[in-house]
């Protein structure tokens, strides 16, 4: 009888296993790239979200009028060229000829007009609508010319048009109320074949893409794999060809593999510990400077983040607008203690450090900050909060003393600096001069002219330290050896598979 029981159990297992083996998944088509995506995009409608995953996916499906090249400069895309009038109130875009949407419609100026109208329509409730709010009229004198009339000069508009949310949609489908959230239709290098939520997104080559000879791949399969360890094993085993980035802890494992190579590049992150300048203790500029002196920045970058470059102000290291102020705050605990003593801050003050628990790296950095600050005599208590709470309480509500976060660099410096110096930003750093300069730089055109203004802003921000500026970290992108030319658009951090080839 015992045997019977064991046999039945064994049989049950056999049935389960064999059942599974029979349903063996099909082999992927030739020249298909398997990419590991760490989460499911909320929606594939470029106008209704601010989610990075959405834009990372949509970069392959949609094009924009202009786009950033690999150095972060904005270059022509769907628009061959553009002109800005002397008063900077009229922008004229000349569209490329012979561009076709995935549904066969020809791209015309009408599509651009309809797209921008959809984007700014109240009913769309686009989170990015305000970036286009200065547009008062859109004229289409002929099929390939679009004229934008602005109510005030607005230099950052070009960067907005070059970002993922500037994607151009076909007018015919917009008018028909098409479900772009699930069935995106654009002019991009790939078209959506299918999307199984939380499982995979299959992209198929657009044979009529306007860049001749591109894309080189037939198919891109984005596998949604939330667990990093599984991504790493997939890369090692060859089931995954490339992934967005690899955690520091997994680096040695991948570096040891003969099949995987690691591409190292600077991210666009501005890693900081933000300080609430309306807090009675942090209000004192000496305390904030002391905190800047108390942190061994290189050590935090190396241990908590995957290495990087130290910054001394509120701009990412690789940005064209970056200016070096790192000499202001060398690691100097003695000076920190002296500044704190001058400010009269002693053991009796306790600051609360809010850490977003979903960002493991920020939490790790926060723990290091706590230890380093206690070395100079500052009591810091850590509070872990979930992401939604962080956004609403810390970032929106400014109900915090200290917090650790990475601000993503923006294509236009106004995206990074806009609003600082006023009550509106969560660090509550009030500086009318900085606010005035930031407002002015928005209306000025030309890189040199704008840089002069931003240089002064960055200097003010460096000296007064509403943040403890840490640095810009590196990103380690793992790809299999047979993959070449997998690119990531700088600053936007979207995936560009157009030039990618598989050997």
């Amino acid at each position, binding site marked *: 009888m015992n045997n019977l029981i064991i046999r039945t*159990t064994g049989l049950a297992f056999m049935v*389960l296993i064999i059942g*599974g083996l029979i*349903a063996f998944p099909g082999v992927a088509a030739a020249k298909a790239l398997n990419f590991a995506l760490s989460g499911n995009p909320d929606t594939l409608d470029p106008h209704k979200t601010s989610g990075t995953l959405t834009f990372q996916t949509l970069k392959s499906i949609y094009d924009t009028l202009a786009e950033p090249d690999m150095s972060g400069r904005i270059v022509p895309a769907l628009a061959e060229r553009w002109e800005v009038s002397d008063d900077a109130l009229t922008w004229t875009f000349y569209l490329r000829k012979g561009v076709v949407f995935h549904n066969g419609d020809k791209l015309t100026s009408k599509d651009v007009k309809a797209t921008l109208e959809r984007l700014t329509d109240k009913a769309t*409730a686009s989170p990015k609508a305000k970036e286009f709010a200065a547009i008062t009229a859109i004229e289409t004198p002929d099929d390939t010319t679009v004229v934008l009339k602005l109510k005030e000069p607005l230099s950052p508009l070009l960067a907005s048009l070059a970002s993922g949310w500037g994607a151009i949609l076909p007018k015919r489908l917009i008018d028909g109320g098409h479900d772009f959230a699930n069935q995106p239709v654009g002019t991009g290098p790939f078209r959506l074949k299918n999307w199984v939520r939380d499982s995979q997104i299959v992209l198929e080559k657009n044979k009529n893409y306007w860049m001749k000879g591109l894309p080189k791949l037939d198919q891109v399969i984005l596998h949604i794999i939330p667990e990093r360890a599984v991504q790493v094993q997939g890369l090692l085993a060859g*089931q995954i060809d490339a992934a967005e980035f690899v955690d520091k802890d997994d680096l040695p494992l991948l570096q040891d593999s003969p099949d995987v190579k690691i591409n190292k590049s600077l991210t666009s992150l501005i890693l900081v510990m933000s300080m609430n300048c309306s807090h009675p203790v942090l209000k004192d500029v000496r305390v904030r400077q002391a905190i800047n002196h108390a942190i061994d920045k290189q050590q935090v970058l190396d241990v908590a983040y995957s290495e990087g470059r130290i910054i001394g102000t509120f701009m990412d290291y690789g940005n064209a607008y970056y200016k070096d102020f790192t000499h202001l705050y060398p690691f100097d605990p003695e000076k920190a203690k002296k500044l704190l003593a001058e400010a009269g801050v002693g053991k009796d003050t306790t600051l609360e450090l809010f850490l977003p628990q979903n960002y493991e790296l920020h939490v790790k950095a926060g723990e290091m900050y706590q230890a380093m600050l206690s070395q100079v005599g500052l009591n810091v208590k850590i509070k872990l909060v979930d992401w939604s709470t962080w956004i609403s309480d810390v970032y929106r509500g400014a109900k915090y003393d200290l917090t650790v976060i990475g601000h993503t660099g923006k294509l236009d410096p106004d995206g990074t600096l806009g609003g600082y110096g006023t009550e509106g930003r969560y660090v509550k750093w009030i500086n009318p001069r900085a606010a005035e300069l930031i407002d002015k730089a928005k209306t000025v055109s030309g890189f040199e002219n704008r840089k002069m203004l931003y240089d002064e802003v960055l200097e003010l921000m460096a000296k007064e330290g509403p943040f403890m500026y840490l640095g810009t970290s590196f990103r380690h992108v793992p790809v299999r050896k047979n993959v070449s030319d997998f690119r990531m658009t700088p600053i936007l951090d979207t995936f560009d598979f157009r030039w990618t080839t598989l050997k």
Partner: protein
Amino acid sequence: MLIISTIVFLVIRVIPGDPALVIAGIDASESDIKAIRAKLGTDKPILTQYVDWIWKVMRFDFDTSMISGQPVTQLILERLPLTLTLALMGLVISIFIAIPLGVVSAVKRWSAWDYLGMIFSQIGMAIPSFWLGIILLLLLSVKIKLFPLFGGGTLKHLVLPAISLGIARAAVLLRLTRAAMIEELSKEYVVAARSKGLTERMVNYKHALKNALLPVITIAGIQLGYMLGGAIIIEQVFSLPGLGRLFLFGVYQRDFPLIQGGVVFVAFIFSFINFTVDILYSVLNPRIRIS
């Protein structure tokens, strides 16, 4: 059900976090957020939102997701088959491990089999199922490429997660089976049966086992509910597009209708399972039917 609906409705509104902020991203302006709130309907008074929602639920309409814009019912039904299959496979595995081992342990108390069973259940209860899942993945998908590393859709993708779920539950069930069996074996009717001259086999497996199974079935039914819960973590480890991931991201993004619909749905499943177990119980145990 109404109580559960009310509780979940209130709880997710009391905790911090606003779906409009999730959609808008951290750089949005106050007016953008207002526009999004107006579109989602979260700017209305809470009481109005509550009445609207309950009214819809009573007509089996769970509203649409704030994030993806799809009907919640459709989202749940899309994911249900996978999670349900996973939970049922887990249950089958746990029963097939627990009942035979439990019975043998009880019949041959303090034998090698018994010790083996006890060690297994001790370990099975101690290790978390997600850890077991990762170990199984490393062994059977990476070292020996028997099972796929990620992806869903086929039964093959479900074997490892089902085993991970099943083993932890089997550990509990095994203990219970052993205890129930020992209790039955010490009862007078067993002694009577033995004195009638029935074989040891007849006594153990026909008389005692039948009675011992009653509490086991009750617990196994409840275990199925837990399996659905355990699936949330396991789906994450195995990259499976099931209900667990749907609800987890719903919570992350404060997708109110999705969380509400999800909780009501799970509560419904729980009551349904309990009800089925009660029915099953009376089928197996005529004594309950009489009383």
